[in-house]
């Protein structure tokens, strides 16, 4: 019953034009796509523009972008990266994960642990190895899973591996037993909720309620300096570009088409010989790793990671970014993440009480009136503009 119901999602309505399968090397394919070219161009231009406005334009000028704003943009970009990860599984695989905040947070914690270890003996208690909160809780040695996080390469690997591993185990169990649709959404939500409760516990040695904070430097660069902030912003931009290309390459490959096939008719995909659960698992793990990367880039920019990132509300909010931007486009996810978070910054500054109303209203309005999101609007206009050349193949999705 559920599969029939799901297949009626607005996405299964055909889009009018499609690119044909290409003979190129899979990773090279995105560069040939018009939409990807535009996206990468805009992203690159934005990165350059912010850099120039921050460093070259003098401080007094109205055009000057201050360090705070650069930092804010960096935060938006890491959210955008997270949204791309969610769109990959939701848009193309039809898996509505309400637990991607968990992968984001785990990546963030891995980075946070590295940053904590970088503090060294400069903490309040001056312990050479233990972070302040552990001294405070009178621990006498580092827990085993904190070992190795003083080495950047290890910590950065964990940023990808830890969320990937969680996704692997969870996804393996879920997809193997064909838990899909709303059931999967509900248990991903339960997963992130359970993790939130767990990370709130001091015994977990992740700083409990307060999380990890008071970071000083990353790879030897002072986190409070403006240059480091710009660097992190640029690094996030580059990570977004690379992840975007990777995701595009995946969705424009035959594997991507298997994903879409799975999304729209899972049983049929099985009958033509694909082990659907393995494809789901593969994409889910890739997506979790990207989410982890986003979290790792987010943490040094905001200076703290605490269990609230695991809250079910955050995870479901990510889904709204994607829905607002437009599912199954990837660039829509980026647009949505930036739009919603910009709106959040404005709202919480001007009238904080109204933000939850606005957020709630967005959920309702987007799902009812804008099922294809902003990207859908853009495409509609574009199609109207190019309707004269009907019949020609368009390179966009």
């Amino acid at each position, binding site marked *: 019953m559920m599969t029939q119901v799901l297949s009626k999602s607005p996405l299964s309505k055909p889009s009018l034009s*499609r690119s044909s399968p290409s003979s190129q090397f899979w990773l090279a394919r995105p560069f040939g796509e018009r939409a990807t070219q535009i996206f990468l161009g805009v992203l690159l231009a934005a990165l350059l523009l912010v850099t120039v406005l921050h460093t070259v334009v003098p401080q007094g000028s109205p055009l000057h972008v201050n360090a705070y704003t650069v930092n804010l943009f960096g935060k938006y970009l890491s959210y955008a990266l997270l949204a791309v990860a969610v769109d990959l599984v939701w848009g193309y695989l039809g898996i509505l994960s309400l637990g991607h905040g968990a992968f984001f947070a785990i990546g963030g914690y891995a980075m946070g642990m590295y940053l904590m270890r970088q503090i060294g003996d400069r903490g309040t208690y001056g312990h050479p190895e233990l972070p302040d909160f552990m001294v405070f809780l009178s621990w006498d040695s580092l827990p085993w899973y904190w070992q190795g996080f003083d080495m950047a390469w290890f910590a950065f690997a964990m940023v990808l591996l830890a969320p990937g591993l969680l996704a692997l185990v969870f996804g393996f169990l879920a997809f193997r037993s064909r838990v899909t649709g709303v059931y999967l959404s509900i248990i991903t939500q339960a997963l992130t909720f359970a993790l939130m409760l767990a990370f709130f516990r001091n015994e977990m040695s992740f700083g409990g309620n307060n999380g990890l904070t008071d970071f000083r430097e990353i790879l030897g660069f002072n986190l409070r300096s403006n240059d480091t902030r710009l660097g992190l912003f640029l690094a996030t931009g580059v990570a977004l570009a690379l992840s975007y290309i990777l995701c595009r390459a995946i969705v424009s490959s035959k594997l991507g088409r298997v994903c879409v096939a799975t999304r729209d008719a899972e049983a049929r995909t099985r009958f033509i010989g694909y082990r659907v659960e393995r494809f789901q698992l593969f994409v889910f793990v890739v997506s979790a790793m990207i989410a982890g990367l986003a979290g790792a880039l987010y943490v040094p920019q905001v200076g703290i990671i605490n269990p609230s990132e695991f809250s079910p509300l955050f995870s479901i909010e990510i889904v709204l970014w994607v829905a607002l931007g437009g599912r199954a486009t990837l660039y829509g996810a980026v647009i949505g993440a930036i739009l919603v978070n910009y709106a959040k910054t404005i709202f919480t500054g001007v009238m904080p009480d109204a933000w939850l109303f606005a957020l709630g209203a967005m959920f309702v309005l987007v799902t009812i009136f804008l099922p294809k999101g902003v990207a859908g609007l853009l495409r509609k206009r574009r199609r109207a503009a190019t309707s004269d050349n009907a019949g020609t193949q368009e390179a966009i999705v």
Partner: protein
Amino acid sequence: MSLLQSLKARDRVFDFMAPDASPVDVRHGPILYMEDVTVTFDGFKAINNLNLTIDDGELRCIIGPNGAGKTTMMDIITGKTRPTEGSVWFGSRHNLLNMNEPEIASLGIGRKFQKPTVFEALSVFENLELAMAADKRILPTLTARMTGEIKDRIDEVLQTIGLVSLRYQPAGILSHGQKQWLEIGMLLMQRPRLLLVDEPVAGMTEQEMERTAELLTGLAGKQSVVVVEHDMGFVRSIARKVTVLHQGSVLAEGSMDQVSNDPNVVEVYLGADDEEAA
């Protein structure tokens, strides 16, 4: 009429229809063998002690009133439903009850659903591409490239099913009959040894039916085809051997004439036949 001509000599024209080096061992008899199969849903026996044998290259029609267990039988063969009792063998080597859907599919059993299910968001071409017999593991799928050879093969099937001009259109916009053909085309891309076709002509016009009949009879001989159908006229036009299911087990088996004269069949079924054939 090029289609008809090509169908007559299809094994030379269509290299994909040439028999494969298949792992299925049919030297010792039938390609599909179901013995004493029983399926119980909540106490209701959807399939009751069913015995069925399909020979290699045979075209078999299965008929029976609603609830006779036709679809459930297909579910069992393709691994969607597990029987409560009994055994199902593909050739003499593969016990289908130990396999899941993709494994069974990759053995060479293709299935067309009663309600046509194609991937509506993908183009006709892509639908066929996905169905094509290939390495269907993850990495090969990720790095798969479109080659001229593959394109030719898809083009040939596109011609067979008559959807060449719609190749780049999303499958969602096809008419009902076109979707049925696309689904048959997808089956052909899989190069199956055994084709299970559930109500292929439901909702088709007379003309479309004729073409479908040609398509199916053309396939038989090289591939085994099992057709489940309600439309007696259509069955009569393609059937060589007919199996009548009733209440989950075989009521009669033989040529169309034999079964339609069987008193049991007349009693439970053929009353409805007149109506449907009309």
